[in-house]
C-alpha cells in the first residue's frame, strides 16, 4: 500500500499546491485527504490511549467517564477517516485506514501517541488536547466543506464536555494533595514540548483553502494559551518555560511508542482480514 504523501505518485492536480519556500517536503498529492487523516488520526490514537483505562479507572464513575470519552474520540476518528477515504477515492474505508496503515503513514501529532502514564498524565494530556480541539472544531464548523462542517458541529458538543471534565480534574489534581500536585506538574512538564506541534502549519493547511477549509492556527494558539494559562494558574501549577519542542507526526515521524500501540490496535484486524462479528 502506497502512503498518501509519497513522492512521485503522479497527482493529477499537484499544480494547485502552492510551493513552500525552503521546505524539502515530498509533494502532497491530495491535501484534503492528508488534512482529514491528521484530524482523524489525532482522535483515533488519543481515543485508543484513553480506552486503555477501561477497567483500570481510579473509581467506577471515572472509569465509565473515561470509556465514554474514548468512545467519543474513536467515533470522531471513524467519521473523519471515512470521509478521508471517500476524499481519496481509492476504495479505502475507515477500517482500511485505521487498521492497514503502518506507523509512518499515521499523521497524528506526537502528543496523542505517548503512553497513557499515570492518571495525572492522562488528565493533563487530555486537557491540553481538549482545549485545542474545541477551538479547532469551532473554526471547522464554519468551513464551507459541508461534510467536515457537519462532523465538526457534532464533535464540538462532545469535546466541550471533555474539556469540562479534564479541566475540572486539572483543578482537582493541581490544587489537591501534595502528591497529586507533584504528579500533575510533572505531567505538564513532560508534555509541554509536544504542544507546539499542534499549531504548526504547512503546505497542506495552505492548500485546503481552496476546499473552503480555512483555520487560523495562530488565532487558535493564542486562545489556547489563554485557556491553558488560566486553568494552570487556578490549579496552582506552573507553565513550563518554552524550550525545545518535538514534532514530525504530521509527516509520519513518530515517537517509539506509536508502533507498539498500533501493533496492539491492529493485530485482530490484520490476523483476520474481513472478519465480521
Amino acid at each position: 500500500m502506497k502512503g498518501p504523501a509519497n513522492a512521485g505518485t503522479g497527482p493529477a492536480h499537484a499544480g494547485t499546491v502552492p510551493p513552500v519556500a525552503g521546505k524539502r517536503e515530498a509533494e502532497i498529492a491530495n491535501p484534503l485527504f492528508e488534512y482529514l487523516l491528521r484530524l482523524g488520526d489525532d482522535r483515533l490514537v488519543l481515543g485508543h490511549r484513553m480506552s486503555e483505562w477501561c477497567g483500570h479507572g481510579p473509581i467506577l464513575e471515572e472509569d465509565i467517564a473515561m470509556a465514554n470519552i474514548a468512545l467519543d474520540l474513536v467515533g470522531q476518528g471513524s467519521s473523519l477517516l471515512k470521509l478521508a477515504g471517500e476524499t481519496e477515492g481509492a476504495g479505502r474505508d475507515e477500517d482500511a485506514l485505521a487498521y492497514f496503515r503502518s506507523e509512518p503513514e499515521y499523521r497524528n501529532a506526537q502528543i496523542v501517541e505517548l503512553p497513557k502514564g499515570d492518571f495525572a498524565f492522562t488528565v493533563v494530556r487530555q486537557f491540553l488536547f481538549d482545549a485545542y480541539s474545541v477551538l479547532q472544531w469551532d473554526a471547522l464548523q464554519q468551513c464551507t466543506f459541508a461534510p467536515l462542517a457537519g462532523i465538526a458541529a457534532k464533535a464540538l458538543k462532545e469535546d466541550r464536555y471533555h474539556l469540562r471534565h479534564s479541566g475540572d480534574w486539572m483543578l482537582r489534581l493541581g490544587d489537591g494533595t501534595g502528591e497529586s500536585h507533584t504528579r500533575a506538574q510533572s505531567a505538564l512538564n513532560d508534555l509541554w514540548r509536544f504542544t507546539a506541534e499542534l499549531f504548526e502549519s504547512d503546505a497542506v493547511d495552505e492548500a485546503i483553502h481552496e476546499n473552503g477549509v480555512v483555520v487560523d492556527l495562530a488565532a487558535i494558539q493564542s486562545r489556547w494559551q489563554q485557556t491553558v494559562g488560566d486553568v494552570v494558574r487556578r490549579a496552582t501549577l506552573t507553565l513550563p518555560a518554552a524550550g525545545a519542542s518535538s514534532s514530525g507526526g504530521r509527516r509520519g515521524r513518530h515517537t517509539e511508542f506509536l508502533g507498539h500501540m498500533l501493533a496492539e490496535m491492529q493485530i485482530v484486524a490484520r490476523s483476520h482480514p474481513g472478519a465480521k462479528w
Partner: protein
Amino acid sequence: MADTQLPLWEVFTQAGHGAPHEHAGSVHAADAEQAMQNARDVYARRGEAVSLWIVPSSAIIASAPGDAGPFFDPGNDKAYRHPQFYKVPRGVKV
C-alpha cells in the same frame, strides 16, 4: 466496614420535558460539579435524560424500616380511601 469512597449523591433523571424527575441511582463524587459529571456519564450517556437533579444522599430524610408498620399498614383496611366504588362512564379509561 467503613465506606472509604467519596461521598454519595442521589441522581434523578428527567426523560423528557414536562416529565417528572425520577430516581435513577446514585454516584460517588467529591463535590457537586463532579457528581453532576459522574451522573451524566453513568445515567445519561445514552440519551436517557434531558435534565438531571443531584442531591447529597445525606440530605435525604428516609423513613426507618421500623416505621413501616405504623406508617403504611393502616392504609390497607380503609377501603373508603380508595376511590374504586364509582361507576366509570363508558369511554373513560382508568
